């Protein structure tokens, strides 16, 4: 009986879980192994007898060295970081104020405004990139980080507002009312009483917004043109492929290094990220 139950647990639980884990993580392992494999081993016939694709006996860092010294990869990392941080800060600022107003204040058309912010949350960037490119050109913002810093908030603000609005609604009104009885202004009560309580919500929104802007691709692809101004995703796609030739070692090294910053931020704040993720859909 007990043996049968244990056998069942293996088949219905551990085995599927193991398949999920391997399936999910294998591409990352493959990135790593490709990045540290010497070129001579990378391009070997797939039917070669001594072919051992899953590990290497001569790990090398030369792909990373090439990437850091012969390309503008470090610059791309800095660009991505700068753009992600500034656009996250702008979005948090706007989202905090708007979320508070929608959660707490009574004013005409509050419902309509809330709904329209939610609808803009669902507008995908691919719907608007062509007219937006024209507008960026007209504002003379093309090929500057500001083109992205000002357009990323379009998909970050609705999300931050939505998440923080939900968070503010869980904070009891009595806290502000007490502060106001003690003589605080509405604005003062918001900034000094409510915002500090909302710090976990702000962190969730911030982490989530940061990863979203780190990952953004299509606006960065269209609005930036000089190699040294690009972000990591666009730089890897457009600068590391010369003609039709793919330098897979370098590409995978770039993919790995470009993923590590978000992965690190994420690993420190997993719980906040998960709150942001689940809160972003539930509101």
């Amino acid at each position, binding site marked *: 009986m007990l043996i049968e139950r244990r056998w069942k647990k293996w088949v219905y639980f551990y085995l599927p879980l193991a398949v999920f884990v391997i399936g999910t993580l294998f591409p990352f392992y493959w990135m790593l192994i490709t990045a540290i494999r010497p070129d001579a081993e990378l391009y070997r016939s797939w039917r070669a007898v001594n072919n051992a694709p899953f590990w290497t006996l001569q790990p090398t860092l030369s792909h990373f060295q090439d990437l850091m010294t012969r390309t503008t990869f470090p610059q791309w990392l800095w660009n991505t970081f700068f753009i992600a941080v500034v656009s996250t800060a702008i979005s948090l600022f706007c989202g905090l*104020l708007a979320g508070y107003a929608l959660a707490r*204040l009574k*004013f005409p058309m509050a419902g309509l405004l809330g709904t329209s912010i939610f609808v803009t949350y669902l507008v*995908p960037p691919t719907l608007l990139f062509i007219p937006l490119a024209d507008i960026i050109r007209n504002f003379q913002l093309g090929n500057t980080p500001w083109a992205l810093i000002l357009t990323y908030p379009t998909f970050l603000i609705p999300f931050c507002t939505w998440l923080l609005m939900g968070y503010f609604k869980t904070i009891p009104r009595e806290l502000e009312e007490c502060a106001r*009885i003690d003589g605080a202004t509405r604005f003062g009560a918001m900034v000094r009483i409510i915002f500090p309580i909302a710090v976990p919500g702000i962190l969730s929104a911030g982490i989530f917004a940061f990863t979203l802007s780190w990952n953004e691709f299509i606006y960065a692809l269209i609005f930036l043109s000089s190699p040294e101004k690009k972000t990591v995703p666009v730089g890897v796609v457009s600068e590391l492929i010369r003609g039709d030739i793919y330098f897979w070692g370098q590409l995978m090294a770039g993919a790995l290094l470009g993923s590590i910053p978000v992965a690190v931020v*994420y690993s420190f704040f*997993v719980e906040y990220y998960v709150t942001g993720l689940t809160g972003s859909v539930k509101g």
Partner: protein
Amino acid sequence: MRRPIAGGSGDAAGTVALPHPRTGRRPRRGALENERLLAAVLLAPAVLLLGLFIAYPFVMGVWLSLSSTSVGNVGQFVGLKNFVKAWNDSIFQTAFWNTVWYTGWATIFKLALGMWLALLLNRHFRGKRLVRASMLLPFIVPTVLSTFAWRWMFDPTFSVLNWVLYQGGFITTKLPFLSDGTYALWCAIVVNTWRGMPFFAITLLAGLQTINPDLHEAASLDGANGWQRFWRVTWPLLKPVTLVVVVFSIIQTFSDFQLIYVLTGGGPANSTHLVATYAYQIGVATGLLGEGAAISLFMLPVLLLVVWVQLRYLRRLEGA
């Protein structure tokens, strides 16, 4: 009790009545005590940015789609010509049906696998937190970069998947992963599922954790087996979360761009284009802004339908 005094009468003078010694500072705090005015001030930055970079581009996109504008060439009003042209274009038709096919299958796979994974992660086992955290990696790593890893795994000459299948004796010649249109679209569906499934799993897991275990216990006391308990207890309670997640996923998948751009670039022979990648090819790569804008606007009816479902559902929740 205080509320009526502070409440939105729209009258700044309403605050005068606060019976408190410190109201002596009133003159400085006047304007922002008005609820409507404060709301307007707080909402201004968000509304300004969204208006400038969402509403305005949208109006402009509609105008572009009705004109013959191309790069460096101010166009004229041409009515629905761009839409008719796209509708009769065989590549556009392929792209549109690819998008529907891609969205449909990827969503089904993501929901089924995500639900399965959520149920597995809802149990207690050692290392649960680590497994759960690592499962989200595909979702947080830049899609473009992980898609490159997949492209390398699907490489025509050095594909590791072909190697495994060959060594395992499943195939005798290489599978044309990305060099055959049908295979390539399925590869894209696989990659999209790989990337999006964690989002389903983690969100559904959060939903699962709100289900009272007593319900399951009661059901099993009544003789329900695991399968019955899932369909009669878990699934009905998870439906609200599931609907919201599916709506989000449909919107993102239907408007997907980067995955196809990196994996196949729309090829071979334009057979794997999605609406968004084709709009990019026409609007940006070729420079025909009017036609490109028209093509991307073909996504709108589908997205509106999905948003409408979502909003109706939210209303019903608020009404309840």
